[in-house]
């Protein structure tokens, strides 16, 4: 697998203006997006994600560091050459950014005209694209006559017009309701699978990452905190910010409030055990508890499906003599079962 997008120690600092000092929006970021990936970049607003995505198509120039897309080093190109590179990178936006002065077909035709496609061929291509996103019958409507989800579909058709190998999605579903979000995400997945387009998804919604991304980077204050396979990052986040995001879609561990409520009812030691897909896992746990001579009860838990695998954890109350409980916890550790006692 070859990297389609490579960022090497990229930083972007905006100069001081007015009352503000200089702002570092992107701080020494390195990442690689492989061809075929749906790469999610998640972070709260102000984390620098929007700046980061604009470094990938050089709408923003980095203060330092190097940006590669395919064989081209964007940071080494002049504005004219960059324009040619941008024709091979599609982009969609939170507010859709459709041309209000043009019809749906006119919107999709614009990048084709920019790329120099003869007028006669444009119509065919526009029809083909609108058919792909399911909006062929809206070709002669104006954007304001469309719903939000339809507008984003037009945005996607427009972004794909010139057959880009890379699509940048900047909070593309953040202005949409949950149902429409799911439709648009499904469409993006289809773009990835059927057209082989690599997609970089910028979002603050973990659900968007969960449902389509295969790799993810967690961003905070301009830095990438962790990145990797979505399953790995979701199942064992190593930073606070990452676990906060994971918990927005994966409520498998009790929150402090839940824990407080549980403690009112359950007086034993409370331990959360990470689930694995190993067969007979529950039986193994049961035997460990029985051999240690403790009573146990499942009091909380959550299991989700992620990239065709189950991920989650169960929270047990363990009661018994102190020595027995300690023995049980030791055995869990010895058997390489990931268990944490809830504080």
């Amino acid at each position: 697998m070859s990297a389609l997008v490579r960022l090497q120690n990229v930083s972007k600092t905006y100069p001081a203006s007015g009352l503000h000092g200089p702002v570092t929006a992107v701080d020494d970021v390195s990442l690689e997006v492989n061809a075929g990936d749906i790469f999610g970049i998640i972070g709260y607003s102000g984390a620098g994600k929007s700046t980061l995505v604009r470094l990938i198509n050089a709408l923003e120039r980095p203060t330092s560091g190097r940006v590669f897309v395919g064989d081209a080093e964007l940071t080494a190109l002049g504005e004219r050459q960059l324009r040619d590179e941008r024709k091979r990178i599609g982009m969609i936006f939170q507010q859709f950014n459709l041309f209000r002065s043009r019809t749906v077909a006119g919107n999709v035709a614009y990048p084709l005209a920019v790329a120099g496609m003869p007028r006669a061929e444009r119509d065919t291509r526009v029809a083909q694209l609108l058919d792909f996103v399911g909006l062929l019958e809206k070709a002669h409507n104006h954007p304001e006559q469309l719903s939000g989800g339809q507008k984003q579909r037009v945005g996607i058709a427009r972004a794909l017009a010139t057959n880009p190998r890379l699509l940048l999605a900047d909070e593309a579903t953040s202005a949409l309701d949950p149902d429409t979000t799911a439709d648009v995400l499904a469409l993006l997945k289809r773009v990835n699978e059927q057209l082989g387009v690599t997609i970089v998804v910028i979002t603050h919604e973990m659900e968007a990452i969960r449902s389509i991304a295969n790799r993810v980077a967690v961003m905070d204050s301009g830095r990438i905190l962790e990145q990797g396979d979505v399953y790995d990052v979701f199942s064992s986040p190593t930073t606070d910010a990452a676990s906060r995001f994971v918990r927005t879609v994966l409520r498998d561990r009790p929150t402090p409030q839940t824990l407080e409520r549980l403690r009112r009812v359950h007086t034993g030691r409370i331990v959360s055990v990470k689930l694995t897909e190993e067969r007979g896992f529950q039986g193994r746990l049961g035997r460990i508890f029985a051999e240690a001579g403790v009573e146990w009860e499942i009091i909380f838990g959550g299991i989700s499906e992620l990239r065709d695998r189950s991920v989650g954890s169960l929270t047990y109350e363990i009661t018994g003599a102190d020595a027995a409980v300690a023995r049980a916890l030791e055995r869990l550790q010895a058997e390489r079962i990931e268990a944490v006692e809830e504080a």
Partner: protein
Amino acid sequence: MNDFIDNLPLFFQSIWETIYIVVISLVASGVLGLALGVGLTVTRPGHLVARRAVHVSLNVIVNIVRPVPFIIFAAAIGPLTMLAVHTTIGNTAVIFALSLAATFAVARIVEQNLLTVDPGVIEAARAMGASPWNIILRVLIPEGLGPLVLGYTFLFVGIVDMSAQAALIGGGGLGTFAIVYGYQRFNWPVVYFSVAAIIVIVQAGQFFGNWLARRALRR
């Protein structure tokens, strides 16, 4: 009333002259002002071709010229008018001075309207690899067209107003007719018919402008 009827051929000629002066000035200043206004807009910091020095220079020029009352401006550019149209009096001189003066007003209105165009739309076009020229002609101006047409309509009234001062530099039109044949000869019907004609011209222009803007905005 008979005094007015004697002047009837001149009245119609004056209407024609006003329309002639206003339309040519509007078209000329419309084109020049559009260019200057686009220049003011896209050179702004953060815009399409941000060039601070150019923006500030254009801004200063517009700010210096715009507050000068038209008739003083027309006098002040006398040498330039002479150079360009080989006379400083008559309709041609009026049209030259008026076009130039209105250009700066048009530029400001164009700038104000183009700044309301959603920056996201411009960014989308940049992301597609479009050149600044292409974006200006195919995105920026079309997206701002509705309000632009309304702005031009507003200016049309201003140009009619300025054109009435043509009398002072030997031009014709309803202003000259009303002052020279009406006011200075105590021939009030001439003045009032001129007023009525101006109102009709302004209303017609306003109506046409609104119609065009509605079409551009599709509302």
